[in-house]
């Protein structure tokens, strides 16, 4: 077993630098009721993910933000193939997952996930080293080789093997547990790691340490990240590109700085405005988001955000906007971005 492999082991990059590592098209998942899809959905069906397209380039970090219930965690699980999508396709390095070119087991070696609850993610009966060594053992490593790899990874994530390898989850802190989870995710030499609110449950100081660790590991191992969070500061710090989700659909996607400097979707603007500010010159005077949080069972007609949007017009309640291009790869699903949509505010400009 080779430890400390250089970024992008030779032979693994099948698609070449131009192919995105992950491409998702038309992904959808509805819970409850039989396969009712767009329009044919039965009453009571939760449309958790309702037609999502995005891609993740090699070596970049895609941040995914949104409020609770927007579908970001479900999207992660659909990509990981933990749950079956109702529609859509997932291409990893140009190949469809589950096809002959890329079997599920093979896929699993290349994509791993770190969960939010560090305690629930660890088997209370296994020691730290056994937990990290489990993956390699499953794929055929000998016990000693797997343990050696586990110790090396523990060292890489900042947990000294002499102190930590023989410990049980309940004996270490939350931050340390999350490092174990990261080590476990790395144990299969993945190319893509999905971090689902991986630092949300940690104290702020610990969170900063873990985030820096993630950046170091990304550089050292040549990783690609999908970073899911509801914390806007964190997502700005970590991401190259950001995707904003709302009610199971993509609201906006683009370069991180572009999103923060010039948000295209009113929802994104509202999210940014709702970040509490320490600057007395920029106090938050009124609540940027009005209305009740949306109900994923009965989403609003037309643009899903229209009941809470300050720039709403009748067009918005009738027609659902596509992901329109703002500039380059900066896209937003809003009529105001499309000069030909017929939104009344555009005519005034």
């Amino acid at each position, binding site marked *: *077993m*080779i*430890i*400390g*492999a*250089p970024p992008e082991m030779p032979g693994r990059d099948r698609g070449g630098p131009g192919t995105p590592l992950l491409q998702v098209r038309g992904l959808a998942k509805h819970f409850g009721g039989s396969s009712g899809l767009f329009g044919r959905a039965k009453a009571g069906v939760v449309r958790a993910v309702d037609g999502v397209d995005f891609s993740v380039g090699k070596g970049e970090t895609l941040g995914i933000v949104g409020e609770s219930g927007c579908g970001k965690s479900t999207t992660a699980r659909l990509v*990981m193939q*933990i749950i079956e999508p109702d529609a859509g396709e997932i291409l990893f390095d140009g190949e469809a997952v589950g096809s002959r070119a890329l079997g*599920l*087991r093979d896929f*699993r*070696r290349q994509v*791993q*996930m770190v*969960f939010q*609850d560090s305690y*629930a*993610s*660890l*088997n*209370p*009966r*296994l*020691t730290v*080293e056994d*937990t990290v060594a*489990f*993956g390699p053992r*499953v*794929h055929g490593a*000998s016990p*000693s*080789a797997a*343990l*050696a*790899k586990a*110790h*090396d990874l523990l060292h890489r994530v900042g947990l000294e*093997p*002499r*102190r*930590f*390898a*023989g*410990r*049980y989850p*309940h*004996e270490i802190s939350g931050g340390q547990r999350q490092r174990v*989870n990261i080590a*476990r995710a790395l*144990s*299969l030499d993945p190319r893509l790691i999905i971090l689902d609110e991986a630092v949300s449950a940690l104290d702020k100081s610990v969170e900063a340490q873990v985030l820096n660790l993630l950046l170091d590991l990304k550089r*050292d191992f040549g990783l690609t990240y999908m970073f899911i969070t509801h914390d806007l500061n964190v997502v700005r710090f970590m991401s190259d590109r950001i995707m904003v989700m709302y009610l199971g659909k993509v609201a906006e996607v683009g370069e991180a700085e572009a999103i923060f400097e010039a948000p295209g979707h009113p929802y994104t603007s509202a999210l940014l405005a709702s970040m509490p500010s320490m600057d007395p010159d920029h106090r938050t005077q009124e609540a940027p988001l009005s209305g009740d949080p949306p109900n994923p069972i009965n989403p609003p007609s037309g643009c899903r955000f229209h009941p809470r949007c300050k720039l709403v017009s009748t067009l918005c309640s009738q027609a659902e906007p596509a992901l329109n291009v703002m500039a380059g790869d900066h896209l937003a699903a809003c009529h105001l971005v499309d000069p030909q949509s017929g939104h009344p505010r555009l005519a005034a400009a």
Partner: protein
Amino acid sequence: MTAVDLSAVPIPPAERSEGYWASVLRRLRRDPVAMAALAVILLLVLAAILAPYLAPADPFRGSMARRLRPVGTPGFPLGSDELGRDMLTRLMFGGRLSLFMGVTPVVLAFAIGSGIGIFAAYVGGWVNTVVMRIIDVFFAFPSVLLAIALSGALGAGILNSIVSLTVVFVPQIARIAEAVTTQTRNRDFVEAARISGASPLTIVRVHILGNVLGPIFVYATSLISVSMILSSGLSFLGLGVKPPEPEWGLMLNTLRTAIYNQPLVAALPGVMIFITSIAFNLFSDGLRGAMEVRQ
């Protein structure tokens, strides 16, 4: 960064923490009641196993001239029964059958019930529903009734009695096994194990069994006292062991007519059942307490 092959490098020994079962044992050892109960159980088991060597007399040989002697008669330290056999000997030998018939159904039910419950819970879906519904049918009978009905239908005998009690306990254990396994199966670390590409069998072996067998085992130990009372009860009714085999429940039955003559002697076999039952209950409670400490 150069690649290094570390499999040849010896790993320095890490500090090892106490495992889960080791911590349970440690807590158990500090519980005086549980330890006392365990001591009583071991004593009874030992007396039963060593009965052929320790008992003063022959459990089958009696003499009508010496029947129903009271406790403390010379030669009969605990008196003699209705056929003149020494009570102490009969009680010791009786322990063999009573303990065997009480513990065996629980052991069998533990194995079978856990298998059914864990399987049903891990597979989930309609298989789970069907299996648990079938289990529900057995739950529709009160245990005593089911045990007696099955025993009555199968006929008397040791094997039949063990079979019917096993059938009574399998649904109870299966239900607990299913509940605990469903709970465990939904936890994140099982999902993480699935993501690493492990086969269902591996996941059950490594991740589920270790977390599930403990609670099921504790529940099973709490069933032992019920099993002993029921199996002796079956013999009491004449559905289990047949005379002249020594067994506590059967002895209670045959000594019933002697309650006016020698009430103390007549009550002795039941005292043994009582003591055994209390000991198993106290030990089971202690075990549950030792396992329940929130980690």
